[in-house]
């Protein structure tokens, strides 16, 4: 519901809001320009002195006004001719015409009324209201996506358009709320819907028959600083009963020109003051810096509009045709999709292709269209369900859980749920979990236990498809490529080979940093910015499916480094380990922001085995500040496959690595890393109690053994790998 509130006014009012935002941004420059171009009065200048200076230069002076910027304008009527000028308060001299800066009136009229008078004012007010609704509903959506208001400024994730939308919005939303809310206030004020009429001083007349006093002798004028002046009107020379009218921040007074006495006085009310403040906040007049800031925030509106539109279109595309989709009533396998951005539909298509190729009749449909009666031949249901942000159901699946609960009886064919989500959110795959729980609660039989795919992981999906194949009795290994990535050629500049003697040929490959264009450098795209622990995707020759390797270097190191072990029959690892210096591979970068040391100076416990040491070595290499880093490194033999052996010794000497513990599985005591962890249990528990972060990189089995060992070690201090993970202090990069 909230998202449609955010979307429809967004599309309908996009153009209007765009005009208002850009107009507002342009207008925001004027108060700053005016402030810069205005000579300021000395702090001690009184209204009487200022008025005397102006009156001396301009006989027939009628009125002086001072803007919040300090700009003083005088109007006079002398020798039958009217005149007006901006005044230098220091000298009383003319500084030129008080006409507004070029473009100001045009822009103001456009921004206020679209050149349509009062009807235009109502339209722009509607635009401001739309902006306010967008900003507020968007703020709630951002908070929901980030997993709570307290995570407002956490790192954003997901597709680029969505990320940019959220990134811009969370900085600009405050300004947009302020600008649109104040716009509505000002509209209400113009149409007299607010009780903010400035009160008038009681009418008064000057004492008859007295000559007019010198300005300096009038106490109220000489005692009021010029900086407080808003307006001073002079008594008409033709009307002996006329008075001075002085308006300052504090109110309006009528002054007898013959006696210098204040005849009547009125102070502004609360509403009037509020409107003045709202006016200042909206226009930046008197708060030029704030005005510029709000203008800058308004500039985000076009980008927000475009990225919002891109997201909406992407969500609409999700219903792309599935070639050869079986009719619902005929299909034995029914794939039901609940997807937010449409990427899950891509996986469904791959699943459809794979199963169809294996001889199954498969129907793919939306989960919202689920009705057990439609699928007469169904033997199994496969639900692919995406989770939006922190556990929220995708738009395309709202109400599905209630629909399931209302079923009179569970479907006869069993179900398997595959959740798509982002592990960096605490409630990872929350919606698909709720779906699986509901299915179980209504008594729907399980075909397979629920599985998850983290951030469109090709490997997670392939693993699930293998398991599905086992259940179905077919060989199924689905390689899904969300979109063919844009690759760049990486040239090998050096290689170090290890492990041939222990039947684990491994190489540290170092590639030259590819040349980056200006745009890439500005936007941080491609290889312009990366850290150790990010992923290098490599497209092996003859395949469109990339393989991912953890990076052992950062962009700042000036090279791209990975560790690769040759797997017998491995297409990509074979190509890489066989690559000669000077050879080129096609590669791209994928960020992995969750696998890197947290900021701060807390100790880091690095645990890796085999090529898993690569990113860990990268972290150590980058540890120039000498933060405590402890490395547990499992290899086969010290003589053969101790990757980075010489570097580790060097880093230990210069303080980047505090302690190195090695475990060799084919040498000496034949230990594994988990054994070394248990041996250091007391110290590890102490480090973790002191706030240390644990980072594990290696194979799945090794990671599981490490988790088990740490669970034992930490049970004594009331912690566990899961509790550390919840605090963001346990990160795994497992392959």
């Amino acid at each position, binding site marked *: 519901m909230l998202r449609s509130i955010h979307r429809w006014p967004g599309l309908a009012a996009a153009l209007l809001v765009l005009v208002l935002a850009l107009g507002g941004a342009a207008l925001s420059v004027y108060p700053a320009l005016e402030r810069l171009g205005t000579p300021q009065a000395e702090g001690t200048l009184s209204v009487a002195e200022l008025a005397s200076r102006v009156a001396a230069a301009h006989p027939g002076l*009628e*009125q002086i*006004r001072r803007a919040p910027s300090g700009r003083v304008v005088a*109007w006079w*009527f002398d020798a039958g001719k*009217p005149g*007006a000028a901006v005044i230098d308060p220091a000298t009383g001299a003319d500084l030129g*015409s*008080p*006409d*507004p800066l070029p473009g100001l*009136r045009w822009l103001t*009229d456009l921004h206020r009324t679209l050149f349509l*008078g*009062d009807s235009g004012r109502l339209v722009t007010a509607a635009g401001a209201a739309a902006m306010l609704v967008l900003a507020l509903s968007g703020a709630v959506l951002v908070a929901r996506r980030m997993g709570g208001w307290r995570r407002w400024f956490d790192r954003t994730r997901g597709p680029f358009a969505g990320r940019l939308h959220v990134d811009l919005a969370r900085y600009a939303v405050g300004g947009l709320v302020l600008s649109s809310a104040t716009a509505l206030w000002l509209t209400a004020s*113009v*149409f*007299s819907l607010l009780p903010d*009429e400035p009160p*008038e001083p009681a*009418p008064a007349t000057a004492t008859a028959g007295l000559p007019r006093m010198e300005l300096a002798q009038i106490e109220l004028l000489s005692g009021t600083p010029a900086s407080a002046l808003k307006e001073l*009107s002079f008594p*008409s020379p033709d009307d002996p009963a006329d008075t001075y009218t002085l308006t300052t921040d504090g109110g309006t007074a009528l002054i007898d020109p013959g006696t210098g006495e204040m005849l009547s006085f009125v102070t502004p009310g609360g509403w009037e003051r509020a409107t003045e403040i709202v006016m200042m906040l909206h226009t930046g007049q008197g708060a030029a810096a704030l005005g510029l800031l709000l203008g800058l925030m308004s500039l985000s509106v076009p980008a927000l509009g475009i990225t919002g539109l891109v997201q909406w279109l992407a969500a609409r595309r999700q219903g792309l045709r599935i070639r050869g989709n079986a009719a619902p009533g005929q299909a034995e396998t029914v794939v039901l999709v609940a997807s937010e951005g449409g990427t899950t539909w891509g996986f469904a298509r791959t699943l459809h292709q794979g199963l169809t190729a294996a001889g199954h009749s498969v129907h793919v449909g939306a989960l919202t269209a689920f009705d057990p009666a439609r699928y007469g031949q169904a033997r199994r249901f496969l639900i692919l369900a995406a989770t939006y942000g922190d556990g929220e159901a995708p738009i395309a699946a709202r109400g599905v859980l209630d629909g399931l609960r209302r079923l009179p009886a569970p479907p006869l064919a069993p179900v398997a749920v595959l959740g798509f989500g982002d592990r960096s959110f605490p409630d990872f795959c929350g919606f698909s979990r709720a779906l699986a729980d509901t299915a179980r609660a209504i008594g729907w039989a399980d075909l397979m236990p629920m599985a998850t795919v983290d951030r469109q992981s090709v490997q997670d999906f392939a693993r699930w498809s293998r398991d599905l194949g086992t259940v179905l009795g077919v060989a199924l290994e689905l390689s899904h490529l969300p979109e063919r990535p844009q690759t760049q050629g990486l040239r090998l500049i050096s290689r170090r080979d290890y492990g041939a003697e222990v039947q684990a040929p491994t190489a540290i490959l170092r590639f030259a940093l590819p040349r980056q264009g200006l745009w890439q450098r500005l936007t941080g795209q491609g290889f312009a910015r990366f850290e150790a622990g990010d992923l290098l995707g490599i497209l092996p020759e003859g395949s469109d499916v990339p393989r991912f390797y953890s990076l052992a270097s950062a962009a700042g190191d000036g090279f791209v480094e990975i560790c690769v072990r040759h797997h017998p029959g491995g297409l990509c690892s074979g190509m890489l380990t066989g690559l000669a210096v000077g050879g080129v591979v096609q590669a791209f970068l994928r960020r992995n922001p969750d696998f890197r040391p947290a900021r701060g100076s807390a100790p880091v416990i690095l645990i890796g085995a085999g090529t898993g040491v690569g990113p860990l070595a990268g972290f150590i290499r980058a540890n120039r500040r000498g933060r405590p880093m402890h490395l547990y490194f499992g290899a086969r033999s010290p003589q053969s496959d101790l990757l980075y052996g010489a570097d580790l010794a060097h880093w230990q000497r210069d303080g980047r690595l505090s302690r190195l513990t090695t475990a060799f599985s084919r040498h000496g005591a034949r230990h594994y890393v988990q054994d070394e962890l248990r041996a250091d249990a007391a110290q590890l528990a102490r480090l973790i109690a002191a706030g240390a972060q644990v980072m594990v990189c290696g194979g799945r089995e090794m990671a599981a053994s490490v988790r088990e060992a740490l669970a034992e070690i930490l049970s004594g201090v009331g912690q566990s790998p899961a509790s550390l993970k919840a605090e963001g202090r346990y990160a795994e990069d497992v392959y």
Partner: protein
Amino acid sequence: MKLLNATLALTTALTAPGLALATPVTFTTQMNSYGGDGAYLAFYVTDAAGAYAGSLWMAGGKAKYYKHLPGWYAATGGDVGQVDGITGASVGAGRSLSITLDLQDALFDAGYVLHVDASVEDMSDSADDVVIPLTSATIGQAVVGRRYVQSVTVSK
């Protein structure tokens, strides 16, 4: 061109029996190019003693800005009822405004004076921008304004 067929509800002295002869009178106002937004204009009449006699026209729709028409505001105390039904749009710089009213003949050559106050956003208010004694002699004469009004011509 604005045409208004309404007999003005001026003071009792002007609406007394026997004085009910009315003639259409046209007021043509030409504005200066003063380089600002549309001006609010108040047309009102004072009698031989200088007392407020009634309003003829108000150019400008928002009553909250009427206090910037100082002469009219002082004379009426800001009473919006005085311009009820005789209110139109503000007049842009360089533009002209023509209003035709059925005025009692007794208004002329009896000491009555037409005042036009003018006001423009962010600019100085101009009381008595134009002052025209309503006499046979001023009919057809363009009377020059002070600041925002270039001239006003009264014609029968």
